[in-house]
């Protein structure tokens, strides 16, 4: 058995194996045009309509770098607390493939734009630091479509040349859960920075997953396999589980693990060797003679630093210190920039504690049910704030508030109007309540007698009856007080 809850170990016979994972995340830079050409990066266009002569590698066409993409990469580096390299070099990675028009990918090999950094993960048993090895800029390839024709492969070059940041982690991850937390954290940081939209369905975030296993306690790394281009967190986790177990089985069987590139088959839930990549993995990197060294000045970097917003880790710290949130609550609220913005808008004019509960509880549940993002919430931050104030000042009870909330979810209405229109205002007039209570006691004489003879449990029954007769509007605190006196 493992010592702490989150430790992920594979047991075989008497041996315990630890899994060592490193990720190469490919994050699409948010930009209008491509890294080295002026065609659009918009998702979902008709095939081959966003392809320039540069992207399709016509003779004599030359790359010219997009300044914004350089800035985006540096900003991301700053967000990863990483070293920014003032001089970096673009290299050619040479290989042949139908969707690689130049016959090489322009990437950065020896001198990347961003060096070592780190990312902090919040795991159930505490924080974990994951090292970042480097971040470099490179071109995306096009898309090969194999299933439109029995004899041919079709090639769409719309993605060809789109800017990617390849973010390489150190082999610091130890479980599928940590991988989940890592990807989400990276995504969150980049979304805060506006450098990558993190949209995994559209392929804006993919990862090559490097997996190896070793006996627990061992300091040496085992032979690793690289699972290429996995495009969802769930698949990454499944692929790791499958691959780690496959490797353990091989070791237990006394067999050798081949260092190789593998592919995750999402239908069969297994990884398998990609022989097609094997015979030509001598990439013959060399500096691209069409591009000079990229140099950025201290001023250039300082200017970008001044544009960096408060990032999730800092925001979390502030939420805990300033608003007295629990780490759990703070984590949830800072996880993406939109949620934290929403939260901060709500609490501008209303109670923090109530706001936290309503956002994490009711709002998230309701959005989840409708499959909506916080940015698509039918209830604006302003109106949620109003609703919370109605509770706080006693205009409505928490229970009535839920009814009002449900109505608000149907379309963004001012909660005050809903309360007025539907007459949902809380009854807090003692006289009116006394009359109501008298009537309830009168209608339930026998129960009142039983109560007096010691069956105190019946108090709840009377509260319930009063609330029912008042249509839920009676101020529950007052009802309690008056009932106690009258019974």
């Amino acid at each position, binding site marked *: 058995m493992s010592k702490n809850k989150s430790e992920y170990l594979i047991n075989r016979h008497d041996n315990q194996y630890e899994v060592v994972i490193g990720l190469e995340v490919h994050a699409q830079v948010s930009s209008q*045009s491509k890294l080295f050409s*002026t065609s*659009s990066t918009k998702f979902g266009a008709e095939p081959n309509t*966003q392809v320039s002569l540069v992207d399709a590698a016509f003779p004599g066409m030359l790359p010219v770098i997009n300044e*914004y993409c350089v800035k985006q990469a540096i900003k991301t580096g700053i967000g990863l607390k990483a070293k920014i390299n003032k001089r970096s070099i673009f290299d050619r990675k040479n290989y042949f493939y139908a969707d690689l028009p130049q016959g090489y990918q322009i990437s950065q090999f020896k001198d990347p734009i961003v060096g070592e950094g780190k990312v902090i993960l919040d795991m159930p048993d505490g924080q974990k630091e994951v090292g970042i090895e480097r971040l470099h800029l490179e071109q995306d390839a096009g898309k090969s479509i194999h299933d439109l*024709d029995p004899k041919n492969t079709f090639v769409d070059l719309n993605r060809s040349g789109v800017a990617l940041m390849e973010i390489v982690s150190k082999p610091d991850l130890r479980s599928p859960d940590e991988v989940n937390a890592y990807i989400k954290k990276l995504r969150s940081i980049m979304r805060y920075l506006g450098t990558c939209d993190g949209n995994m369905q559209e392929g804006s975030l993919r990862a090559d997953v490097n997996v190896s296993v070793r006996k627990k306690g061992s300091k040496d790394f085992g032979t690793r396999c690289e699972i290429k281009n996995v495009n969802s967190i769930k698949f990454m986790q499944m692929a790791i589980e499958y691959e780690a177990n496959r490797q353990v089985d091989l070791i237990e069987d006394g067999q050798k693990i081949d260092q190789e590139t593998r592919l995750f088959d999402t239908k069969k839930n297994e990884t398998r060797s990609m022989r097609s990549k094997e015979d*030509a993995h*001598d990439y013959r990197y060399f500096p691209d003679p069409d591009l*000079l*060294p990229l140099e950025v000045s201290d001023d250039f970097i300082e200017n970008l630093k001044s544009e960096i917003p408060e990032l999730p880790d800092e925001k979390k710290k502030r939420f805990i210190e300033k608003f007295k949130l629990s780490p759990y609550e703070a984590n949830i609220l800072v996880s993406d920039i939109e949620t934290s913005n929403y939260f901060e808008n709500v609490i501008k004019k209303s109670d923090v504690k109530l706001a936290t509960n309503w956002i994490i509880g009711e709002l998230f549940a309701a959005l989840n049910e409708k499959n909506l993002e916080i940015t698509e919430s039918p209830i604006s931050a302003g109106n949620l704030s109003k609703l919370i104030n109605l509770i706080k000042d006693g205009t409505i009870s928490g229970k009535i508030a839920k009814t009002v909330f449900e109505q608000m979810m149907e379309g963004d209405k001012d909660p005050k109007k809903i309360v007025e229109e539907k007459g949902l205002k809380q009854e807090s007039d003692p006289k009116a309540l006394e009359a109501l209570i008298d009537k309830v006691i009168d209608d339930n004489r026998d129960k009142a007698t039983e109560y007096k003879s010691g069956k105190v449990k019946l108090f709840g029954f009377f509260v319930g009856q009063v609330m029912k007769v008042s249509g839920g509007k009676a101020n529950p605190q007052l009802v309690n007080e008056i009932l106690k006196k009258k019974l």
Partner: protein
Amino acid sequence: MSIDLKTIKHISKLSRISVDEKKAEKLAGDLNSIFEFIEKLNELKTDNVEPLTSVAETTLKLRSDKVESKNLREQVIKNSPKENEDYFVVPKVIE
């Protein structure tokens, strides 16, 4: 050093140029005489020399993030030896 047929086959594979036995032998001969001549560089000690990639003593100029290229699909696939309306077409790729 000498470049053997196995090496020729390997680099022809990397270059995606098919070679038969006869061509490989001719290439091996040519390359060996060329490399014999290239080996002259070994006379020089270069341990402390900075490699020179480009003689242009300047750095990369940056362009602004503007979309200027319009839809060139017709232009781009017009020259293709095989295409349909929308795509470049190549023999089936087996993963």
